[in-house]
């Protein structure tokens, strides 16, 4: 069985191990220093480049803004037009053609029925009063008014507020209801 025989003296061996440790530490330190140096140079360079970029962009914006200022009047007109068009849209959406409503309402009225009063308020509440030549004329009108395919498309919640018959056999009535799509 072979036995390791250390021929170097104890002191020399210690020196050699210290030297090896020094070498390793130095190499490691140098590497760290190189990395730190690269990080420093890299960071400062990148910062410098970005700073120049920022400055360049600021300059570019300044020049372009000066160009935009030349179109100041055009921009004002464009903005006025935008505001007005938005105002118009809001108004158009609220406008109601009562003439057209009268046309549609007229289509529902039989020849033996005549109206004396007709009103629609802002909330779409309808009130109408009139007379019918006979009970059949009034019934016909009433059925048309509540027919889903005819009057039902225009009005909802139609109710009779009053109904009376005079000595001539005419029926006087008043109705109320709600305008659809209001």
């Amino acid at each position: 069985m072979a036995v390791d025989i250390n021929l170097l003296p104890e002191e020399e061996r210690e020196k050699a191990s210290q030297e090896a440790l020094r070498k390793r530490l130095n190499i490691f330190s140098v590497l760290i220093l190189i990395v730190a140096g690269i990080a420093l140079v890299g960071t400062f360079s990148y910062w410098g480049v970005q700073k120049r970029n920022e400055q360049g962009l600021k300059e570019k914006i300044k020049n372009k803004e000066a160009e935009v200022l030349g179109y100041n009047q055009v921009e004002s007109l464009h903005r006025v037009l935008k505001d007005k068009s938005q105002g118009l849209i809001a108004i158009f959406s609220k406008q109601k053609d009562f003439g057209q409503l009268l046309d549609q309402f007229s289509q529902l009225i039989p020849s033996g029925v005549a109206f004396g009063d007709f009103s629609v308020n802002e909330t779409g509440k309808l009130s109408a009063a009139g007379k019918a030549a006979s009970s059949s004329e009034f019934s016909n009108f009433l059925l048309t008014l509540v027919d889903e395919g005819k009057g039902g498309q225009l009005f909802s919640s139609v109710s009779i507020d009053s109904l009376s018959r005079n000595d001539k056999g005419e029926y006087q009535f008043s109705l109320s209801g709600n305008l659809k799509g209001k």
Partner: protein
Amino acid sequence: MKIGPSLAGGSSPLYSKIFSSLTIFLLPAITVVVVVFAFFLLNPRVRDIFVLNRSIKDLEGKVANVDRKLSILSSKDSNMLLSQVREAEKALPSQKDIPGLLSSLDRLAQETGVSITSFQVSPGEVTATFSAQAVGAESLPFKMAISGGYDGVRNFLTRAVNTNRTLRIRSVAITAQAQAGQASVSASLDMETFYQIIAKIKFAPSDRLPDITTEEQKALEKASQRPYLSEISGTRPPTGKLNPFQSF
């Protein structure tokens, strides 16, 4: 009596050993100092870089916005814009324009063959002043009564909401009248007209330019296609009277 080895000599193996051990850690120690120094030097710069990157991103967005704005503005014809604004101004004036309203209603009544039997406008200043609270179109309510044949009244109601000057009928009450055998009707109308003061808001060149949408373009076209009834702004009757109390 000798207490320890002389510094100059350093011949003592103990001191030599300590010195030798210290020199091993000299470069690592310097490295640590340099790294710490570098950290304190880099830390604010790294923060700066983050801030710079954000700022650059914002600035790039701004450049794109200004570029876009510039290309839109340069493609616009200022004369065409001006005429569009004039058309929009007729539909939605910047002032209450009561003379224009009266003129429009008179003309409308004349063209539809009805007569205006009453007119009442809500009290208020003749000129409108801008208020920051008022956004969009403001309303000028008024009441009026008209009378005439059924067709005339019906036409008035339809044309009132289809003229260039924007009008809205809020409520209507029609009553049949029998005059000398001829059926006529009268109508009480609760109406409103609109005006929109042009806000004198200063805008920066980098402010985003709002797009005029297709819907908005259509609204402008619709308004400009409607017949214009007011004639006040064009021809004004001469003024000047010796006696202001003399009847007309």
